[in-house]
């Protein structure tokens, strides 16, 4: 997994609560058997004025001029500013894959849905929870200042504004450690193989019906 230490990036506002993963990446793109290439279809139904299909070149499609991702001022954005319950709905990891493929490195919101939140960490994408009023102020500042940039410092657990003001954020110690070092979760878990085997042997003894029923 790619590491996340510090990132400075242009902020893109997504001013809408309960953004679900169907909206982030519609179902027709889930037919891919790859992990990459979802970026052009991120927020497909909001971003374009026509229906999107897999394997279709998006460069000539009519764009929705009212959607922030299409505003000239937000081109090259890499920090997504969102509202409450971002990423609700389906468990599709295609949602963080699409955000990552587009170029986002961090998402700031007052709250996230559980499965999406967890999926982000597996892909080097940092979801940051900040209080609603703080997020609201960030929206105001993003709207007010063209080229509004935030610096995200994972080590210090700070979001720094252009003014120099630092906003602290919480992050799970395990996720922080893995992100800072770009660690592969599977490799980490396999370091505990002995514990897993011991647990498994005891479980087989206690509940043998859970083993070998399906062959």
């Amino acid at each position, binding site marked *: 997994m790619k590491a996340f230490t510090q990132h400075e990036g242009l902020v893109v506002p997504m001013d809408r609560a309960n953004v679900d993963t169907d909206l982030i990446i*519609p179902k027709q793109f889930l037919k891919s*058997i790859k992990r990459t290439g979802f970026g052009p279809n991120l927020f497909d139904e909001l971003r374009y004025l026509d229906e999107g299909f897999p394997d279709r070149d998006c460069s000539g499609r009519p764009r929705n001029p009212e959607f922030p991702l299409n505003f000239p001022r937000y081109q090259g954005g890499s920090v997504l500013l969102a509202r409450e319950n971002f990423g609700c709905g389906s*468990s599709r990891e295609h949602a963080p894959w699409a955000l990552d493929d587009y170029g986002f490195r961090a998402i700031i919101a007052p709250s996230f849905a559980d499965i999406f939140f967890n999926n982000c960490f597996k892909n080097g994408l940092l979801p940051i929870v900040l209080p609603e009023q703080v997020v609201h102020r960030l929206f105001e500042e993003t709207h007010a200042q063209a080229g509004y940039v935030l610096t995200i410092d994972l080590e210090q657990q700070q979001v720094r504004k252009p003014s120099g003001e630092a906003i602290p954020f919480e992050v799970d110690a395990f996720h922080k450690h893995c992100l800072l070092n770009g660690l592969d979760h599977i490799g980490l878990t*396999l370091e505990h193989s002995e514990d897993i085997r011991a647990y498994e042997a005891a479980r087989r003894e206690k509940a*043998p019906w859970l083993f070998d029923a399906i062959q």
Partner: protein
Amino acid sequence: MAAQTLYDKLWQDHLVKAHNDGSALIYIDRHLIHEVTSPQAFEGLRLSGRKPWRKDSLVATPDHNVPSETVERAAGVQGIRDDISRIQVQTLDENCRDFEVVQFGINEPGQGIVHVIGPETGATLPGMTVVCGDSHTSTHGALGALAHGIGTSEVEHVMATQCLIQRKMKNMLVRVDGELCPGVTAKDVVLAIVGKIGTAGGTGYGIEFGGEVIRKMSMEGRMTVCNMAIEAGARAGMVAVDQITLDYVKGKPYAPKGEQWDRAVEVWKHLHSDDDANFDEVIELRGEDIEPQVSWGTSPEMVAPISARVPDPAAEGDATKRTGMMRALEYMGLTAGQNISDIKLDRVFIGSCTNSRIEDLRAAAAVAKGRRKADSVKQVLIVPGSQAVKVQAEREGLHEIFVEAGFEWREPSCSMCLAMNADKLGAGEHCASTSNRNFEGRQGYGGRTHLVSPNMAAAAAIAGHFVDVREMAPVPAEEERV
């Protein structure tokens, strides 16, 4: 030992290792696999030279992309017309072959929606941890299991290690006491719950559903309720084991038998919350207060009783919610204050991991019997959740009732719940759907979904608009009709 909730017990029982930073390794007993969220996980195993830790914990089946239309379906994987859908199903075939994973293939007797075939075969059992790369894995919690959806990286993680890295969730109890009125179903109960606590109300929690209404509910009803726990934001929903659970599980093909059954029952009968267990949050509803529900918006929390009107955003105090409601009404083409019962339907979908089991089909058939769909309704799809459900329904003659009513009897698949196969809504079309999500575009680009129970969906198909299924006049028996 301190009093424990059902979730506390299931967590404790699967704890391999607790780390100092609050994370823990949790052992996974059953891992269900389908074609959409697994290809990248198998590819990850290949790239790292890893193999599944325990092959006998894996069960795979294609469900999201497989055609429901009978002729296309009969031609098997090769016959899937959509090229990318076909490749995805073929990829599952190849991966299951290469990694020696048991798969119920496209037209094999065990095939069906993963969340339907798990309980019905006994592949998912009480006391298990169950995961799948699908958020509706919460369904299996109805058995008294800890079951939740995971992303594709975790699909790979569980295949490679048999474990998940987790943090313990908080405990929520949703109690539904009293009694349901006739015609009110498990779907109405869970829609009412989601409407009450909101789509993020359960975030960070595992929800146990309890109370008299849940205790009296059939296993299939409990599955419908747990299925939609995720629509309230909770990854896991669960119901305590009782005699109804044991009677359901007994005799299932993969359930323990003989002496092992007796041993299992000894363990399973402790799978309930202790009397004085502490919940971080308790929500209470009365069964009598629940009417048949219809969703009017683009989030499952946007529901109303059939007797109500579409709510007015102007009356909403919270600005973010108000904006969301206005956007939803615009997308849905509805006006604040209009009667829910005046909403006209273009299509009706009865199926999905929420409502495609035999009891759901019986409920729909009971309404459809002797009636015909309204001419204004273009299509009514009845999609059984599994091959086994289909066989049972045909044995009972339900398919004939549907066909006589002008409904289409289809093949087991996820179908129009998320429109990954050919079953889709057209832009602007309204659909009465027994599925679980009414998100924008979910059932087709520009499509408008209204979530309802199977009997309400069937009633809407007959009337052409929503009606209170409890007020439909009985159909005269065959001999009384002229």
